[in-house]
């Protein structure tokens, strides 16, 4: 039982990271039907900004906020320069552009920062909490990851459902043409979506940097892919779906490693994706009358 609880904690902290990245994927898909493959690399840039800020002596929260702001701007710039002019082109053209932007960020990162691993300074000292005579251990960093993820998720729900921008996002997602006729500034709304999604990815990047203590320019590839799976599992375009998808992917990975064969972890994760798509092609939370952002 204690082992199971420990694995659950492991899975929840890993899943929180996937969930944060998956939110950005799902928001962008919801609004312009684009799978933004550069999203994982925005997460990488976020981690580097956080790295820079903490090495300059900033605390955890200021570094997190700075990283989110810088990445939000990066997200808007990417959309403005690479995707906007292709908005009326075939879907495949935008998709390939997204892959191009992804490569640009990765290799630009190698060129500018070098391929070597960077390690974060010790921003906040680790504290361990023991339960069941030390059989279950949870660290303050794991708690921070889960708490920050939950708070950002709640904030996002508030923005989407209670603010004017959120209303505009839902309108554009529902019917872009109609939203435009109603006087909604579609360009700004899409920019806002990119900004929020990228900021969330940056938060994930900083959390990962502090938790695992090693970042490199290629760090966004695998988590990006996993988060994409999480978004699809939850029903791409649905915000709570991305959250649940991310968390469940993390927990499933932990349980497969813990009770099955550790090397089958990724295979099981992707097999799950295939099964869910066969049984429920729109994902766990997707339905015909889905509420998209």
């Amino acid at each position, binding site marked *: 039982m204690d082992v199971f609880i420990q694995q659950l904690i492991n899975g929840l902290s890993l899943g929180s990271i996937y969930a944060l990245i998956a939110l950005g994927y799902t928001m962008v898909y919801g609004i312009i039907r684009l799978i933004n493959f550069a999203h994982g690399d925005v997460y990488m840039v976020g981690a580097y900004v956080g790295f820079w800020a903490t090495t300059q002596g900033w605390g955890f929260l200021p570094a997190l906020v700075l990283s989110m702001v810088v990445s939000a701007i990066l997200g808007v710039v990417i959309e403005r320069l690479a995707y906007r002019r292709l908005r009326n082109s075939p879907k495949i053209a935008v998709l390939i552009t997204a892959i191009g932007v992804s490569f640009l960020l990765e290799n630009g990162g190698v060129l500018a920062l070098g391929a070597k691993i960077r390690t974060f300074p010790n921003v906040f000292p680790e504290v361990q909490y023991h339960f069941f005579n030390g059989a279950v251990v949870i660290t303050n960093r794991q708690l921070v990851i889960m708490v920050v993820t939950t708070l950002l998720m709640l904030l996002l729900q508030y923005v989407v459902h209670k603010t004017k921008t959120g209303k505009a996002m839902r309108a554009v997602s529902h019917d872009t043409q109609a939203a435009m006729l109603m006087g909604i500034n579609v360009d700004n709304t899409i920019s806002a979506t990119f900004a929020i999604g990228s900021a969330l990815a940056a938060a994930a990047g900083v959390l990962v940097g502090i938790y695992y203590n090693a970042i490199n320019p290629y760090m966004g590839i695998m*988590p990006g892919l996993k988060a994409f799976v999480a978004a699809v599992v939850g029903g791409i375009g649905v915000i709570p779906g991305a959250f649940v998808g991310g968390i469940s992917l993390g927990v499933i990975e932990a349980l497969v490693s813990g009770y099955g064969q550790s*090397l089958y972890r990724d295979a099981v994760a992707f097999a799950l994706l295939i099964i869910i798509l066969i049984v429920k092609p729109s994902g766990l939370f997707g339905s015909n009358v889905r509420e998209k952002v």
Partner: protein
Amino acid sequence: MKWKKGIAAVVSLLFSASLLTACSGGGDKKTSANPAPADAWVIGGNFELSGGQATFGKAAVNGAQLVFDEVNAKGGINGKQIKFVALDNKSEATESTNVASKLINQEKAVAILGCTTSGDTLGMVQLAMDKKIPVLSTSATNPKVTVDEKTNKTNDYIFRACFIDPFQGTVMANFSLNNLNKKTAAVLTDNQAPYAKGLAQFYKEAFTKKGGQIVADEGYVTGDQDFKAILTKIRATNPDVLYVPGYYEEVGKIVKQARELGMNIPVMGGDGWDSPKLVEIAGAGALNNTFFSNHYSSEDKDPIVQDFVKKYKEKYNEVPDSMAVLGYDGALILVDALKRAGEPNAEKIKEALAATKDVQTVTGKISYDEFHNPIKAAAIIEMKDGKQTFKDKVQP
């Protein structure tokens, strides 16, 4: 009709290409028969001067250069100076083949020193065997480098300056049983690295043969971030020690996360741990109570070791790592063979190398066994507050 023309064009292209390669093959044979320039011994260096293992290659070249400079200062070998031409293989096996070809055909090298990794060295093994040019790798630890896998015969022209993977695994198994007095072990292997798999296999064999018990045998892949789930599983089996024969990036994360889970047992590994990055990733505190086998320790009080460390520091202003010491040792072994061969003839150098006996190097007295592997001791390093300290020297 169009596609027929296309096929004809392709076929004729292929044909002319094969003719071309046949020609160049013939031409190469002729050039390799040419004797080296009479005024100097040309030694080729095939090293990782850029790319993923750039620190390895640079250190090895520094070490080797030290030996050649010394020999040249003393008047060279038989009155002839040594010309060391080190080229960059970009840490890629294919590029390693190109570099070897350039060294043999253009630079007219009589022997090649390098590479530092097993993969890159394997990239030039076939070429060196075909051209009959002796190769001495400084730190390729995989057994396959000097022995042909299919025929189990020794590759006549390939030698190395380091011990091989099975030895490292066995050394650490004995160390856990005898020195640490531990009876159960868990093994966590990088399943993508032949190096790690080799070490793990021989650790497990030696450990169980001598009465120990392997309670968990798990794997991960290069680039993994999160090891908590696997470590939780291992923790439930209550091992006395954890053996992680991987490379420093993942090892650093594993040690850190194991400590976070409250696993304070000794963690051990091999020479893949030898990097300053290990301390940065895992943290100095987490690395206490960890041990790894290595080629040498700069803390070893042996006067030969201290003498080398001093010389190296004077010239390059840094403490030599294992790659530097193996570059130095490789050059020493080669120079010894050149002296005994007496003339720049690849065939004679190869025979002199195979007959290497009791050559005094920094990492021990080197003699080759029938598979061209040196028989020598390994150093065991203990990490204390982020510093490598010399724990023990284990004779084979």
